[in-house]
């Protein structure tokens, strides 16, 4: 017993031509064009974020970011100092006021970035909320549930409970999260995913889940509600983006410590400058000291940390994945082993006919025609692939309907459905019977009728099986009406093979470069598994796997220090999903699986795991890169401010004014303005994430050190110089 997709009854396999709602993005294209990229500065979102920036000035909120809180306190000190200067009618008042204004802007810019990130998530949530306001559901009444003629009643959406059945037709909004139990429909999910192309959802199979707030745009479906009020996807998403559930992730906490430590050191540096400078006889004004402090503490990363975290969550949502916590997203970046189900992830998930091998002495055309007839009524992907391949090989004939019509007149036509008893399917037409099935099943049938399987066919069967394929044997019998004239004949073997998705080997190679091993899980026997594993280029495989095996494997990997991610959908998978460091449940899967996992993929696409890993990595890289950038910026700020502070007493220090800044005042001001503006300039980067490529750690480090480390040292020299040149044009500042 197993939940592996391979072991499922063939009939429940999803139809292969359900269009995927979005092309699976290649790892190499992440944050690129595969998913619709939203602009960082959407007009409405910006307008909404501006008042938020002020509301967030509340010290109780600011306290969570020690860096920005320090800036806020510094701004207050600066305001007081300005007031004192006004009373004393100091000539520096204008300069001090301008500095103070920019300090305030620094805080506001930080709040703005956070508000903007929240706004992007909230915008989606709000439109959904609005969509649900006063929404009525068409609930099916009473015991007649699921029957086509059941009576409908109209109830407010928030009253829906788990297990209720509702009807949705074109134009209706799906009232709550659920699963389609009847029908097929096109659904517009743009309200959640921002993706405007509609997707197909249908009962049965992996794409039966619908989300509350999405819109049905064609056909009619019956949906069984799977979430109680307050527990729907959108409810949880709102909670996540609104920060109610935003807890610090482990890496965020570690970074937080570093930022606090840097703030303390720079606070000490600035404060002791007062006695130091006093000894030299040149104490800078409090405003200038605050300016120095604000420039030194890591405001850039301190301001952007919340936005980076929220945007990471947001990116995940754009990929139609719901994470239960930010921690899970971050862990995804650390994954070292991926356990991937073969079916649907590595292969297309259904075996396809790839060859016809006629029995000795049987003409190929006769065998192909018989194989086609035997499969004509078989609606499984395997059956259809046989018909398709026969067509490609020139065997065209009447369709099932035509056959039925012509045979119906003669009264001798019957479809033989696949049954667990016979393990064969086929067609009776006139006096002839056509059967196809596993070799052993067909052999039994043939023997019962007095025939046997020729040795040539047996050889074919064995060789197909040892190559990892599935042999299907086709046989026929002429004597339906006259039992004594039975002439059972084995016509040949159809080679069914699991087809490995094109390009999958490249993706695994990319993962290997990133240091991630892939392990294929399959219910197939070892031979089959080994053949597919080789073709797909996975690092390891687990054949004849039961859910218990999965769990054992996860434990073993973890014991060896690996961090494991896996996908699953069945109740049997729940323990393994819970044990894995990152467990992604398919939305189409069972409730038990979803509860055990720490992520749910709304598209039920097992390949998504690879993207989730990339999103996790991108989150960390963005944080690390901006931290490096922020700290590296300090070098230039020192060269701007320190000579400005003391050049009056030690004229020789003008040697340190390597940027040749116009005057001490414009130097300090330029540094402060640069420090504030850089936050806004980096908001799009924080929201979008630093570009991530699947390269080795060494290559990634070299690149990011060059861009954000060296760049972080050089950029402010240029920026401050430009601002200084502009300030030189402003009269009255010097």
């Amino acid at each position: 017993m197993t939940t592996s997709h391979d072991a499922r009854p063939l009939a429940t396999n999803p139809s292969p031509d359900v269009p995927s709602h979005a092309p699976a993005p290649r790892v190499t294209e992440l944050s690129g064009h595969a998913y619709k990229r939203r602009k960082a500065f959407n007009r409405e979102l910006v307008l909404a974020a501006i008042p938020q920036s002020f509301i967030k000035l509340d010290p109780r909120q600011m306290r969570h970011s020690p860096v920005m809180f320090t800036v806020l306190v510094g701004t207050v000190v600066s305001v007081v100092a300005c007031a004192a200067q006004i009373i004393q009618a100091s000539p520096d008042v204008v300069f001090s006021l301008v500095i103070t204004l920019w300090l305030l802007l620094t805080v506001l810019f930080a709040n703005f970035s956070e508000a903007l990130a929240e706004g992007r998530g909230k915008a989606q949530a709000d439109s959904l909320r609005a969509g649900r306001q006063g929404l009525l559901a068409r609930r099916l009444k009473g015991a007649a549930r699921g029957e086509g003629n059941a009576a409908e009643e109209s109830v407010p959406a928030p009253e829906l409970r788990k297990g209720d059945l509702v009807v949705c037709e074109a134009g209706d909004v799906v009232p709550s999260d659920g699963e389609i139990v009847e029908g097929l429909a096109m659904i517009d999910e743009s309200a959640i995913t921002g993706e405007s192309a509609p997707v197909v959802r249908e009962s049965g199979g992996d794409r039966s889940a619908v989300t509350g707030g999405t819109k049905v745009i064609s056909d009619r479906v019956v949906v069984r509600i799977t979430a109680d009020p307050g527990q729907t996807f959108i409810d949880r998403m709102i909670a996540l983006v609104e920060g109610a559930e935003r807890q610090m992730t482990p890496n965020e906490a570690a970074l937080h410590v570093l930022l606090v430590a840097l703030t303390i050191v720079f606070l000490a540096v600035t404060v002791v400058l007062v006695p130091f400078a006093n000894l030299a006889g040149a104490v800078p004004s409090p405003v200038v000291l605050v300016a120095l402090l604000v420039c030194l503490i890591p405001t850039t990363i301190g301001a952007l940390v919340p936005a980076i975290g929220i945007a990471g969550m947001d990116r995940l949502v754009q990929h139609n994945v719901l994470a239960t916590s930010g921690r899970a997203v971050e862990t995804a970046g650390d994954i070292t082993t991926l356990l991937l189900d073969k079916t649907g992830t590595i292969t297309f998930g259904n075996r396809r006919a790839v060859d016809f091998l006629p029995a000795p002495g049987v003409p190929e055309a006769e065998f192909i025609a018989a194989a086609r007839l035997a499969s004509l009524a078989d609606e499984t992907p395997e059956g259809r692939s046989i018909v398709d391949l026969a067509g490609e090989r020139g065997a065209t004939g009447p369709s099932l309907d035509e056959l039925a019509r012509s045979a119906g007149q003669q009264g001798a036509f019957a479809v033989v459905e696949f049954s667990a008893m016979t393990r064969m399917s086929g067609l009776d037409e006139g006096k002839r019977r056509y059967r196809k099935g596993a070799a052993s099943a067909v052999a039994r049938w043939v023997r019962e009728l007095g025939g046997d399987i020729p040795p040539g066919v047996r050889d074919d069967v064995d060789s197909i099986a040892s190559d990892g394929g599935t042999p299907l044997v086709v046989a026929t019998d002429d004597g339906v009406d006259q039992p004594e004239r039975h002439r059972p004949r084995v016509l040949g073997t159809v080679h069914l093979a699991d087809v490995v998705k094109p390009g999958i080997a490249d993706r695994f190679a990319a993962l290997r470069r990133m240091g991630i091993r892939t392990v294929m899980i399959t219910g197939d026997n070892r031979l089959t598994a080994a053949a597919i594993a080789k073709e797909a280029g996975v690092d390891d495989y687990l054949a004849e796997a039961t859910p218990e095996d999965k769990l054992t494997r996860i434990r073993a990997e973890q014991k060896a220090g690996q961090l494991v991610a896996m996908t699953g959908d069945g109740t049997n998978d729940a323990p393994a999903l819970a044990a894995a460091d990152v467990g992604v449940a398919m939305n189409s899967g069972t409730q038990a699986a979803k509860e055990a996992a720490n992520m749910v993929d709304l598209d039920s696409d097992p390949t998504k795991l690879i993207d989730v890993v990339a999103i996790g990595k991108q989150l960390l890289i963005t944080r690390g890169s901006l931290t490096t950038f922020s700290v590296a910026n300090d070098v230039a700020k020192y060269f701007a401010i320190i000579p400005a502070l003391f050049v009056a007493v030690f004229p020789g220090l003008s040697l340190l004014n390597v940027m040749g800044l116009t005057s001490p005042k414009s130097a300090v001001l330029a540094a402060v303005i640069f420090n504030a503006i850089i936050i806004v300039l980096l908001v799009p980067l924080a929201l979008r994430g630093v570009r991530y490529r699947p390269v080795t750690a060494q290559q990634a480090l070299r690149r990011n050190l060059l861009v954000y480390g060296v760049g972080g040292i050089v950029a402010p020299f240029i920026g401050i110089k430009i601002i200084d040149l502009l300030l030189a044009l402003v009269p009255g500042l010097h």
Partner: protein
Amino acid sequence: MQFSFLSFITQIGILVVALGAVHRPLGAYLAKVADDGAHLRFERWIYKAAGVGPDSEQTWKGYARSMVAFSVAGVILLYAAERLQPLLSGGRMASVDPWVAMNTAISFITNTNWQAYVPESTLGFVVQMAFLAVQNFVSAAVGIAIAFALVRGFVRKGSDSLGNFWVDVTRITFRVLLPLAAVVAALLIVTGVVQDFSPSTVHNAITGVSQTIPGGPVASQEAIKELGTNGGGYFNANSSHPFENPNAFSNIFEVFLLLAIPFSLPYTFGQMVGSRKQGYTILTVMAALWLIAEGIMASTIAAWPNLGEGLEQRFGPAASGIFATATTLTSTGAVDSMHDSLPPLAGGMAMFDMMLGEIAPGGVGSGLYGMLVLAVLAVFLGGLMVGRTPEYLGKKIQARHMTLAALYLLVTPVLVLVLTGAAVLIPSVVADAPSQGPHQFSELLYAFTSGANNNGSAFAGISASDPLISSLMNVAMWLGRVLPMVLVLALAGSFAAQKPIPPSPGTLATYGPLFAGLLGTVTVLFTALNYFPALALGPIAEGTFR
């Protein structure tokens, strides 16, 4: 006096070759001492006498408690010995002033060897040999022991212990430092360093005047003074005294000695963690920083128009620069010239060397653990930039580790800055620094940089015996030694408890030129950001004075 580049290059070349030859055998031997499961017979006697179970392991807290207890006991013992000197010397030497005694006790226990007294006239043979010299050995051993404990933290998997403090200190003292010091002392005597118990009478052939100069067991003290990166000289003039450092050969030999163990420990580290390239990466960063610092020091000296008195007259300014750099980059503080007399920017360079945290190569043990903590910071930044939770040697760096590492890196700069800030606010302390202008500030900044980093050298001229400045120095030395050590042990304990993650291509490689470059840059940048304003008001203001 002329600066000779030829002399500079030659001396650096000799040092590089000598250190290159010695780091491997010495480093491998140290690793063997750290990991040896067997005890020598006399060690067993010591453990028995001290009531230590040599095979019992300590948690990080136990290790830290032992270290603190040992240090406190050392301070009390040394203080008592100085105060009771009349008793110990049979009345020949006077009791040491209480302020000076306490300052000296803390100074020697913390491996600082800041000397607020004139040793040859204040302390007799007994206190020098039986107490100060013993501390020279054991304070060095404590430093190395803490480094061992940190490395074990990286090596051990899911363990709650870091080794045994008493065993480590005993072994390092008796198996490493004592034998080495004995050999070195013999070699020093060969070079002409004095070893006797009576004053010498020296006739000056030019002036025809004879003078009596106190002698003493100088060579034996000198050996551990350099080997253990202690720096406390037998004479006030330290290694510029001809009895301590008689000639050009003894001079370069002493520089070699103070660099020898610190430059060997990265090899020990590589050996213990089972990856020599990890050790060589640390060594490369240390060596590169040392050579760059030597180069800058040499250029600042060469560029100064009037090299004055106070620089080493016998061996030339190049030798002064080399010694000054080596002594400030290690936590030695021995001097063969007066740093006060260095050109301003060279003096600033000496300060910057100490401000680096003395990690290139640093004090015995403290250099290695200091560099490894910086490596944790570099790995954290680098690790995030490659998209993984940062890990060093398979150990994840999380909030707790970051807290400990950040506190470690914060302690010394905050001590230096805050204590200097406090000092300049106290008029009597400011008056202790006799110069004016930026140089006066430099003298105070230098003193606290030296104290908090446990270096021990000074800009001569500052009067360090004043009770107030003495107390501030005591705070700097004690906290600058004990706090970082406790934090390192906590970090080690936290790492030891973790199970390691096997490396993969997705792991940040903590070896090779790229990481070495990152580590070196992080080190210099972090130091520069902490001290730039202070340096600007001191040596830079003085050096750019127009």
